[in-house]
């Protein structure tokens, strides 16, 4: 049955923007900011519930970037200077790995709005192990294989802790596979993710974005996850011979990098075309990437539209 959900960090409201700046300037306290974020987590959850989304996220408002909970919460790594976040006019702090990484299973839970998520069917987002390593600097003196093994152990612990906390769906975000395909060993990336998801009791997804998934599709559908996400604003699917039988594909048709709110017909059409092109079991509508590259009001409008489109898609599937 078609469904829909969000895939990453939600933008901050103008109030949180103002308060976070004020905290940096010593004009507000961290507690005031935390309370405002908690309010917004509740608003974001209510928004998704009203839109009828199938899995609920907390908006990841406490995440400074996709890797930050790990780079600040895992012994053996720390965040460094800013680097460009792919082909966006935004940046992230590149983690530096300085020694063996020590799994804790607490890094993501520490920044999750668990209280607000209580009673919902919620999903969490982690970087894929190969993306975590590729986006970090290895200053540990350890081999690439050792560092990847460490990343697997870290993410395995995080994913299990999330499942134990009631998480129903873990998405592994990976913008690296499709943007640096020539420099990534896809088989190694798949094997690493397999070690993370092995025995995990939640539904799982690999979500790719910012790059063309088309040339990699036949490889991506072999990843050990239930669902594969594709950025339709960066991918050419026409003519693909890849078949995704047994998988659900996530149609990244809501553009997280442009403010124009898509119309329902376009979203429904894109989802059906993707499902048919790949012969997938099912299709879900999602944003192509985190909505954090938009202002709050645009992300809010797109979330509502995502729900409307999912409803229309479900009606057509009946």
């Amino acid at each position, binding site marked *: 049955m078609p469904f829909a959900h969000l895939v990453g960090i939600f*933008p*901050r409201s*103008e109030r949180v*923007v103002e308060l*976070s*700046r004020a*905290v*940096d300037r010593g004009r507000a306290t961290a507690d005031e900011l935390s309370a405002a974020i908690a309010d917004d987590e509740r608003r974001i959850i209510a928004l998704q519930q009203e839109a009828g989304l199938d899995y609920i996220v907390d908006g990841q408002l406490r995440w*400074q*970037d996709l890797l930050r909970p790990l780079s600040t919460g895992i012994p053996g790594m720390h965040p460094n200077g*800013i680097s460009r*976040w792919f*082909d966006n*006019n*935004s*940046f*992230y*702090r590149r983690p530096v790995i300085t020694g063996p990484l020590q799994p804790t299973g607490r890094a993501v839970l520490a920044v999750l709005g668990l209280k607000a998520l209580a009673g919902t069917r919620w999903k969490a987002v982690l970087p894929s192990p190969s993306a975590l390593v590729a986006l970090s600097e290895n200053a540990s003196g350890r081999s690439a294989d050792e560092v990847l093994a460490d990343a697997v152990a870290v993410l395995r612990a995080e994913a299990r802790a999330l499942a134990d906390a009631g998480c129903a769906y873990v998405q592994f975000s990976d913008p690296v596979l499709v943007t640096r395909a020539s420099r990534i060993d896809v088989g190694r990336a798949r094997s690493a993710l397999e070690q993370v998801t092995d025995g995990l009791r939640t539904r799982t997804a690999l979500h790719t974005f910012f790059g*063309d998934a088309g040339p990699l599709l036949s490889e991506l559908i072999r990843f050990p996850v239930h669902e594969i996400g594709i950025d*339709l*604003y*960066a*991918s*050419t699917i*026409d003519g693909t011979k890849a078949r995704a039988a047994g998988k659900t594909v996530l149609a990244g*048709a809501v*553009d997280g990098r*442009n*403010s*124009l709110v898509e119309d329902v017909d376009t979203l429904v*059409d*894109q989802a059906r*075309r993707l499902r048919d092109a790949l012969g997938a079991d099912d299709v879900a509508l999602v944003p192509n990437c985190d909505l*954090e*590259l*938009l*202002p*709050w*009001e*645009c992300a809010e409008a797109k979330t509502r539209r995502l729900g409307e489109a999912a409803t229309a898609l479900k009606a057509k599937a009946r």
Partner: protein
Amino acid sequence: MKLFPTQEIGSIAKPGWLVKATRGQRPNAADLADLDRWAERLGIDGTGELKTLLADEHHDKERVRDWGAIFAVRFFEAAGLDVVYDGEARRVEMYEYPVRRIAGFHFYGHVRSFDNKYYRKAAVVDRVRLVEPFHIDELKFVKSIARRPVKIPITGPYTLADWSFNEHYLKTVDASVTDLRKRSYAAKHAFTLDLAREVLNPTLEALEAAGADWIQIDEPAAATHPDEVPILVEAFNESVRGIKAKISIHICYSNYRLLYPEMLKMRVDHLALEFKNTGDFNVVQLFKDQGDPRELGLGVLDVHTDVIETPEEIKDKILEAARVLGPEKIWANPDCGLRTRTWDVAFAKLRNLVEGAGLAREALKGQPVG
């Protein structure tokens, strides 16, 4: 023209007195002491008028900005640069300033840049239309006070488009194009070309009419999306259509290899690129490999560190480039604007830039290059 002339690239830090005064605040004693120190160092007279203005919270802000431009022009002249401007003393920054002067844009709320840093990104919601050419009065003022040749910087159409949301032009794409990637490309093309034809070209014409001899078009987004380089080049060429002034492009922190060979079709006289902070791609060899015949503004100052490059290392970098490309088309400049450095650091860097270029000229006296 002498060998290895020197130029600045864009903005420098705004002095504390200028920042506060334009916010309607009164500068403090430290700001005023800084003003006095630099006035003396740069040989600027008549600052009594400025201090009177600063003491009045209801002062004429434009006149204070005039003073900001005077300080910046004298700063570059005192450093010894051959071509100067006002350090963008009147501009908030390079995106919002021009966009506020173009009809068709709408600003939503803030977008995060990183951590707790945010910026306002506009959406194009209607066909773009120039309200009136911008930077004209600014240029006239600089020309009225400068004692050296002047080069005016302006943000290019591709960067303005790339840093904006695109609503209007996406709606105009033919409905028969269903591939979202192709729709986005077509919309970006239409948007950028409209900015070039409707905004940049008439503004460049107006700047030329106001006396611009050299216009630098800033395109920091140039290499962000390699498949869109044809859009960059086409829009650039439309922007400069019919313009007789010298045209340069400044691109920083990019993999320049992604721009070629398309870049060879760009109608530009001079490319000002980073060289000091190039990482693993070397622009000089790239110019050689591609047979790029145009002038190269060689970035020999790292704008992200307080380390002051020595004249000797600057000389060596310049000569290294000259050996590959020949000396006639090499200019020396910082990698980018020095706005993140203090005036003391920026001045020391620029003085050494000028001295290093002089040493390079000396080294070539009577010697063949290569």
